[in-house]
């Protein structure tokens, strides 16, 4: 779960990391008021979750409250990376001396956390990596040991820092790791971490992403997560709805054959096989390992809420999943709706004979082989198109 800049800054600030003076504005008038309070030139920053804002003009500067209001009027409601700008962060504009990059994230390959720093902040890390690969310094952090002092010394030295600046940045690294760990972060990034001409160290931008599997121990983020999802529409709403319905995962694609499988890798395989026969998958729906008849019904409602779906393809290859329960779910769904949706079912694994018998009784074409099931569903789609 990605946080907005202003949310991430609040977390960092609560941990003691210096951030610029400022507040969130939702109207041009509020932007003017905040600029007035600050009483010096301000930065007006669109609060969006994706993309680089600076170069596309979504971070602007204003010398006085009038300009701040005018800028806010232009930015609010505009479109950025597919989402509408609903709020702005108005904060003091700093006299930048130098810009550093500091971040901590998860290194899946090393199976450690990794602290990444660079003296070349202010541009995206990918760009730093391309232009100054030698100027990226990394240290792996063991989750039990935490960030150790000698590691911090190495990182500080790598950025070429000395004296008071070194102490201030060292403090920020420690606090950033603490904030990351305490909130179950998967990414905490300050870019740029600015050293002002006056010598103070300030987090001018902030990113924080929280591990969605850990939201249960962070009720404040969990509530925010739910609230945020309530504003979604279309495919995004359906993808979110999947988690509410207890469906393992749901990803919408642009075809007409809804693929439902019990497992992620099996689902991906099914999508590949359908595409190979020029079928067009409408979605990837992983119904998970804890399958009940009710969950199957729910999953069917979910995939059918996408108006493009014409046929369903079930690929059930059960380790723990009981095929008879899957079949019950399909039959219950048809009974409730008064009609059977066109579909093909591959049912294999635990209690497969029972499952197939139930489905045959209801008039569903069933298969043991996924290759035959995929062939049949693509044919069925062609027949429907005629």
């Amino acid at each position, binding site marked *: 779960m990605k946080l907005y800049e202003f949310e991430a800054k609040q977390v960092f600030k609560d941990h003691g990391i210096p951030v610029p003076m400022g507040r969130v504005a939702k109207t041009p008038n509020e932007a003017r008021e905040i600029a007035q309070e600050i009483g010096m030139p301000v930065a007006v920053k669109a609060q969006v979750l994706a993309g680089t804002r600076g170069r596309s003009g979504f971070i602007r500067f204003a010398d006085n409250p009038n300009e701040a209001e005018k800028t806010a009027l232009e930015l609010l409601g505009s479109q950025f990376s597919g989402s509408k700008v609903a709020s702005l962060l108005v904060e003091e504009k700093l006299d930048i001396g130098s810009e550093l990059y500091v971040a901590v994230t998860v290194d899946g390959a090393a199976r450690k956390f990794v602290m990444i720093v660079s003296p070349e902040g202010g541009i995206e890390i990918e760009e730093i990596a391309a232009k100054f690969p030698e100027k990226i310094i990394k240290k792996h952090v063991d989750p039990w040991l935490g960030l150790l002092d000698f590691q911090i010394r190495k990182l500080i030295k790598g950025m070429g820092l000395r004296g008071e600046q070194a102490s201030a940045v060292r403090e920020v690294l420690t606090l950033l790791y603490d904030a990351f760990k305490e909130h179950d972060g998967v990414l905490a990034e300050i870019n740029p971490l600015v050293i002002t001409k006056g010598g103070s160290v300030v987090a001018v931008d902030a990113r924080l992403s929280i591990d969605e599997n850990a939201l249960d121990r962070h009720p404040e983020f969990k509530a925010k997560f739910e609230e945020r999802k309530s504003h979604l529409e279309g495919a995004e709403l359906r993808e979110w709805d999947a988690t509410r319905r207890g469906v393992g995962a749901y990803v919408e694609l642009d075809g007409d054959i809804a693929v439902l499988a019990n497992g992620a*890798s099996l689902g991906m395989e099914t999508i590949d096989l359908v595409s190979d026969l020029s079928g067009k998958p409408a979605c990837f729906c992983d119904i998970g*390992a804890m399958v009940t008849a009710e969950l199957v019904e729910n999953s069917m409602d979910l995939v059918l809420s996408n108006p493009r779906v014409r046929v369903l393809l079930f690929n059930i290859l059960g380790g723990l999943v009981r095929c008879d329960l899957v079949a019950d779910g399909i039959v219950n769904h048809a009974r409730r709706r008064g009609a059977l949706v066109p579909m093909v079912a591959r049912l294999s694994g635990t209690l497969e004979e029972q499952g197939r018998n139930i489905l045959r009784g209801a008039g569903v074409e069933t298969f043991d082989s996924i290759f035959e099931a995929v062939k049949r569903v693509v044919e069925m789609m062609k027949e429907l198109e005629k």
Partner: protein
Amino acid sequence: MEQLAILVDESTRAIVQGITGTHGRIVTKRMLDAGTRIVAGVTPGKAGEKVHGVPVYDLVEEAMREHPEANAAISFVPARFIVDAAIEAISAGLSPIVITAEHVPTFDALKIVNYATSCGIYIIGPNTPGIYSPAKCLLGFHPLRFFGKGRVGLMARGGGISYEVSGCILSKGMGISTCVNIGGDRITGLTFAQVLKLFEEDDETDCIVIAGEIGGTLEEETSTVTKPVVALIVGRTSPSGKRMGHAGAIIEMGMGSYESKVKALSSAGAVIARNPSEVAELLLRLT
């Protein structure tokens, strides 16, 4: 010469953590039916009960006192208690430890994996159906009818794709030495590179199948081995930037794409199959 499979075999004596839960009970039955020697179960507060004849204890330590021959574990403990349960099993020196829990927070998975590594213990999972050496030991919930005993070493992340591949191999008259499912999460205990090395050194394995998927870099980290390797990467038609069920299966900034995996695996000498049935056909040709 004694024939050993990798990680589990006839000498495996398993403890089941969370044996009294719904899945613990069902899978214990399946493992016993497959011939696995399960010596004890552990569920706090349930000491003295029996599950399919297996005695239950409150602590791993108590189970070990009564059954000192125990040398492996599988846990059906849910994510919110998994750090404690895993460290308990690691502290008892059990290895491998299969962790079936889904939705384990990354921080918790890292704690478990790093502690296990420092103790020299193998973790399989989290979010895995486990490991299966046909006719020797099932430490997991693989559906047995898709597996025949043979000399193909099989590794995958999730269960479904491994059953599918194994079923295709079986239909061509071949079988599996061991099937290792390393798990669908971003952080896994055992990696493909480690399992590949174990298969390379295994006398019971002649050729190796990697049934990988898009996302992460585990496929790219594997190195060249002397035995023939067939690789299948599912998700080649999946869109990038979307998390396809498995936390690992997301292509971000070009990392973990189908193309990058195929390139890395091919240059390490693996032959690439496009679907499970092609895996079996290629194996026939290679052996």
